[in-house]
């Protein structure tokens, strides 16, 4: 059940990140991902950064070989899509803190957009290596969210990690929920800051994926399979896991600490 679609729109979001839009009818919700096949290259899991209607989208950061190659795709190029897979963000919270690092905004933006459209109040803490890499800042602002930023190099907003911003916001404002996506250490910190305040935290996590059908075990994270049980989990489900924030598994299934190859 794979559909070949052609890219209808291409937007360079940051110097390292591109959004591809394409027609795809299957209904989807914020949090869900597709397996997107770049013919002649890899097939990768990608969150839908545009989930509504028949024009879907993914937003891809140049990381490894495939995601770098993908930056060169043009309108009219063909890709294979299957999905959407996985679960969705629970959009019922009314005051939401959104904490995004790097390409994490790709999955957070459509969730925030849907929540905002139904009247939720959103505060967004956005982090990146430098100012030009802040993903979807404008999109968050356009939906009426309060946006605070942090950059590793201090080129804009708080100098340092976005977790610092998030911790401050959690200490000073009241939220019904936190939604976060980014490096696991970041999400861990956010979850630990929110825990004592009894604010539920939902993390969108990434793991190696092959089948996306809950079968091949590539995405196993402790007892869960990210592809079907996730990718969105309540933090309390993740924090007790030995692997969360510490290690993932490489394509052979070997456990590899984060930050090493």
């Amino acid at each position, binding site marked *: 059940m*794979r559909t*070949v679609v052609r890219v209808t729109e291409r937007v360079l979001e940051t110097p390292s990140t591109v959004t591809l839009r394409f027609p795809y009818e299957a209904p989807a919700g914020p949090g869900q991902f597709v397996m997107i096949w770049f013919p002649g290259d890899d097939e990768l899991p990608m969150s839908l950064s545009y989930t509504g209607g028949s024009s879907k989208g993914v937003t891809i950061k140049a990381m490894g070989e495939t995601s770098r190659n993908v930056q060169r795709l043009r309108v009219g190029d063909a890709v294979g899509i299957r999905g959407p897979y996985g679960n969705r963000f629970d959009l019922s919270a009314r005051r939401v803190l959104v904490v995004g690092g790097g390409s994490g905004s790709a999955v957070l933006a459509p969730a925030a957009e849907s929540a905002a459209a139904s009247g939720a109040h959103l505060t967004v803490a956005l982090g990146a290596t430098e100012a030009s890499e802040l993903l979807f800042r404008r999109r968050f602002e356009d939906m009426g969210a309060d946006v605070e930023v942090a950059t590793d190099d201090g080129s804009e907003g708080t100098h340092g990690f976005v977790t610092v911003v998030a911790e401050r916001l959690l200490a000073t404002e009241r939220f019904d929920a936190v939604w976060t996506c980014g490096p696991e250490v970041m999400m861990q910190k956010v979850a630990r800051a929110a825990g004592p305040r009894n604010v539920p935290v939902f993390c969108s996590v990434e793991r190696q994926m092959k089948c996306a059908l809950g*079968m091949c075990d*590539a995405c*196993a994270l402790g007892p869960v399979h990210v592809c079907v049980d996730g990718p969105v989990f309540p933090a309390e489900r993740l924090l007790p896991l030995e692997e969360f924030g510490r290690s993932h598994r490489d394509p*052979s299934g070997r456990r590899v600490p984060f930050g090493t190859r």
Partner: protein
Amino acid sequence: MRADVAELAVEIGPLRLRNPFLLASGIWGESGESLAGAWDAGAGGVITKSIGSAPRPGYPNPTIESYSDWGLLNAMGLPNPGIEEYPREVAAARARGATVIGSVFGGDAEEFAELARRLAATGVVALELNLSCPHAEGYGTEVGSTPDDVAAIVRAVVREVRVPVIAKITPNTPDPAALAVAAEKAGAAAISAINTVRGLAIDATLHRPVLAHGLGGLSGPAIKPVGLACVWQIYSRVQVPVIGVGGISTSEDALEYLMAGARAVEVGTAVARDGIGVFGRLVSGLSERLDALGYRSAAAAVGAAHTAPS
């Protein structure tokens, strides 16, 4: 309370399984926690991913193509962490009480034997030999495609280990029973059949094969008739127990396999469609069906279709 509830436990040689439903190799078998999860979900035993000598990333994606609800084509390429690292996964699964069967693949009899020896040392209750892995990358035929190959591998393994050895047979052969007979003669304690059926998917718009590897293996409902045929043929030519695999997703499917001659069955692709809860449903469903048909045990139904009154 029902007076009669069919006994589901079955014996594969010296091995007693609490029910006939095994997690098939390659499904949920990369991590020990997943294996334990399948056991907790009700599987009668769990088979590890096929383990090789060195860590293998497998083929690049796309590694699977699915066909509505009747089939799945995969070319995972035997990804596995390698025999060095894998014992910790077996240990994790065993620590949670799971009955674990090891699976190994190799390029020749010697490699199989060495892998079997090392995996047996982890406390697996039996070893399944994946006799359907490609001889060499990109080349179509498989290591276990002739009776002589099968016999050589099984013989070498049986010499190395004390646990029962299960020879897993390919369907891509003119005479599956001949492979099974060779395995039995060489000392296999059981035969499992089948592995996936050779297949290929092409995307015409992209004018290329869908799977990165090109060729793949078909599994799921579409291959149930193929698996049943192999079990049927094998059952009438060997004495050792047969384990049925291929397209089982309902208890009715499983019962058909028992009647064709399988003493236990393995469940793979159904986990993708129905989730791991499929094991609970298979167990209760089989129990009800056996009761309804008047069988006192799963074992009593084994081979029933070979002796139907006419």
